[in-house]
């Protein structure tokens, strides 16, 4: 089946079994290995990508379902100002250890910040609760997101992607 969608801002087209996992198509057909497989059952969030503005686990989504959709992975998001802010505040907050969950958590943070410019700690924890991290205990990640939202509010670049 021919499947067309927008990937990181570029129109793409491929012939594929529509039941293949979006995760495998992204990693294998497009070489986007920032999208990680941690569990393959939608529990850990390491494979999180954006469909439009919504965070989805790409391991549970058949590629046929993204026909015509707009998909953003960490590889696309990292070209933005908001990524640079998040990467910096994650480093300042000590939010990164082994790093395997990190791209998914960066995408979950972006999904939150797109909708909520100044989230509370509880809202951040709620938004990240689908992304498991075994290294940090989460508080330092939450701190990274808080810092990013402050920077973005202060530098007036919130609306820019």
């Amino acid at each position, binding site marked *: 089946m021919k499947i067309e969608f927008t990937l990181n801002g570029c129109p793409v087209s491929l012939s594929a079994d529509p039941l293949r996992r979006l995760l495998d198509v992204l990693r294998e057909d497009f070489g*986007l*290995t*920032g*999208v*990680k*497989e*941690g*569990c*393959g*059952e939608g*529990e*850990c969030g*390491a494979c999180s990508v954006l469909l439009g503005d919504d965070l989805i686990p790409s391991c549970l989504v058949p590629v046929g379902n993204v026909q015509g959709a707009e998909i953003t*992975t*960490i*590889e696309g998001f*990292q070209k933005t100002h908001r*990524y640079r802010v*998040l*990467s910096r505040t*994650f*480093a*300042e*907050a*000590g939010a*990164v*250890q*082994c*790093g*395997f*969950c*990190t*791209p998914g958590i*960066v995408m979950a943070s972006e999904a939150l910040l797109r909708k909520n410019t100044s989230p509370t700690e509880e809202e*951040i*924890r*709620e938004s*990240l*609760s*689908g*992304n*498991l*991290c*075994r*290294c*940090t*205990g*989460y*508080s*330092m*990640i*939450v701190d990274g997101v808080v810092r990013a939202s402050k920077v973005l509010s202060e530098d007036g670049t919130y609306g820019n992607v």
Partner: protein
Amino acid sequence: MSHKISQSAVRIDSDDKCRGTARYIGDITFDHILYGRTVRSTRARAKIRTITFPDMPEGYYIIDASDIPGKNCVKMIQEDFPVFASDRVEYIGEPVLLVAGEDREEIDRIISGIEIDYEDLSPVTSIMEAESRDDALFIEYHVHKGEPATAFEQADKIIEATYETGCQEHIYLETQGMTGLFRDGRITVYGSLQCPYYVKPALVHAFGWEEERFRVVQTTTGGAFGGKEEFPSLVAIHAAVAAFKTGKPVKIIYDRDEDITASTKRHPSVIQFRTGFDTSGRISCMDIRVTLDGGAYEGLTSVVLQRAMFAVTGVYEIPNLTVHGRAFRTNTVPAGAFRGFGAPQAFFAVEMHMNHLAGYRGVDPLDFKRSYLYKKGSKTSTGGTIHHPVFLPEMIDRLISKTGYRKKIRKTRTSVSGYRYGIGCSLFLHGCGFTGSGEKDKIKGKVKLRGSPDGTVEILVANVEMGQGPSTTLRKIAAQAMGLPLDRIVYQNPDTDRVPDSGPTVASRTAMVVGYMVLEGAERLKGTWNGKEEKTVEVRYHHPDFVSWDQEQLSGDAYPAYSWGVNIAEVRVDVLTGEIRVDRIHGIYDIGTVLDELIARGQMEGGIAQGAGWATIEVMEQEKGRLKQCSMTDYVIPTALDVPSISVEFLENRPYELGPFGAKGAGEIPLVGAPPAVAAAVEHALGTPVYRIPIKPEHIIQGLHDED
């Protein structure tokens, strides 16, 4: 923090990991690569009668025990762990053979056509069953101190209690993975691992070739927690043997369910105390039995048992003591290394027991514990000496005043809006580095530092970055010692063709033991290198001369130095559902000089979360050798919503003289302290004693019912 080195540096790996450009083994590919998938035992204990295969398509291979050029065993301490089961299986999930080929769906089709005909044998699946058999004991040790027999005879009162801890799964976010290559007569293995120089000798043993023909390269490792200490040697041999047979690179990446089913776990334990009080009302003696379930093969069980036994009197000086340790073979997935390595089991037991003894004496647990604390010069459980000052009293005072513990512990147990509130405390230590004479007699670590003409200095060590931060902290040590900017110091993932064997990345040893060698190397290089030529210095491990140890008698200084901690946990228990909500955990730690405040705090917070999880929601049980929780849906770890508010402090200006800039071990200690603090708080909330973790909702409901 006041020490210059404690000021946090930006982690060198942070942006690559955010960006997704850090390359883990699953992200690295090779031309003509094949995938390998493991066919595993579905029986807890059985003979394999026959295996029948479907027609094999061109380019697909079966790899089994007959393909192993050398010995069919994974070299650890004993030689009992087969690479592939050949005629019998001892646990569900034991590898029997591999199927390798280009297309994973085709591999799955082949696997569904393979039939293994088993003759079932009766399995042993619990410590209790194992105790009644004469062939199920792996190992047994005794530790004696003082005159326990006399002290028990003269005891005024003897109290007995039994404590149990459950299995725990590491849930590193990146599953086990390896790629093997066979080129020009050499085997190279790339993979996710903690100990390159455990994997290499395991390959040498399984192939029976000279060691120059093997190279092991660590790839960015997505968490490990001990789960990638010994287990990766098995996966590495699988990938290497498959590469040797097929002549092509072979990649093996475990699915999560497969990883949970087949990889090592924390040892379940049963710890029994008999404690005697003398006529003055002081503890005079303890007789402690430490029993571990080792699973189907011994692996590292003997060393885990030793650490558990040496830790089982906690931070307390007990004058007369016997500790009897046993580890049993059962037909369950092998237990292995897991952050804390036996100490978390021991500390849960001793801390709860001390709380219960305080209750018996009618005094506050903290006041009771305080009168038995180790201090400088105290004799440990193995008759060794505490060589350095112990700052526990001031750490306890600090945390009491910070948390309002005194007021909260006196509160009566009334339900407020359906919750019972509780507060609990734990005191703990962790021995830094290998147990006993391991550093001196087994590891004999070496590090190199190489100055280059471009003005950079490379740290050549076998210790890996798995999230805990040595790619930053080891560089900070060298940079500060040499007076160079951090970006002039290079650290790369270890490759056994390039780095000496500085020992495994385990046992809270990297910062303290390896870091000290890096410091010495940096100081030597600074004095002799002009910054413009290539120059390498090599440093060998020196054992501290104040340490003496008798491995036969298990007596003397089990560790050169200890890190210390105090935790206070605050919880609420839902009286309707039995659910535990951990609200806050406060920690104060003496880890010597902090090498990087953010990294150290990350270790503490992550370890506390992992420990609190084990005490509460991380339930892993088996029935007749079959795990009931084999996926991340069934085995639940804490999410961002479950983890409590955590506050961490470090004691400052207490350097350890043989650690780099005064640093001691820090990786494991947070997991040691959190479970007993949480359990004590639950006990306080319920008003009934806790003897087992994880504390399941049904235990809570039962506790509330007993009270009524």
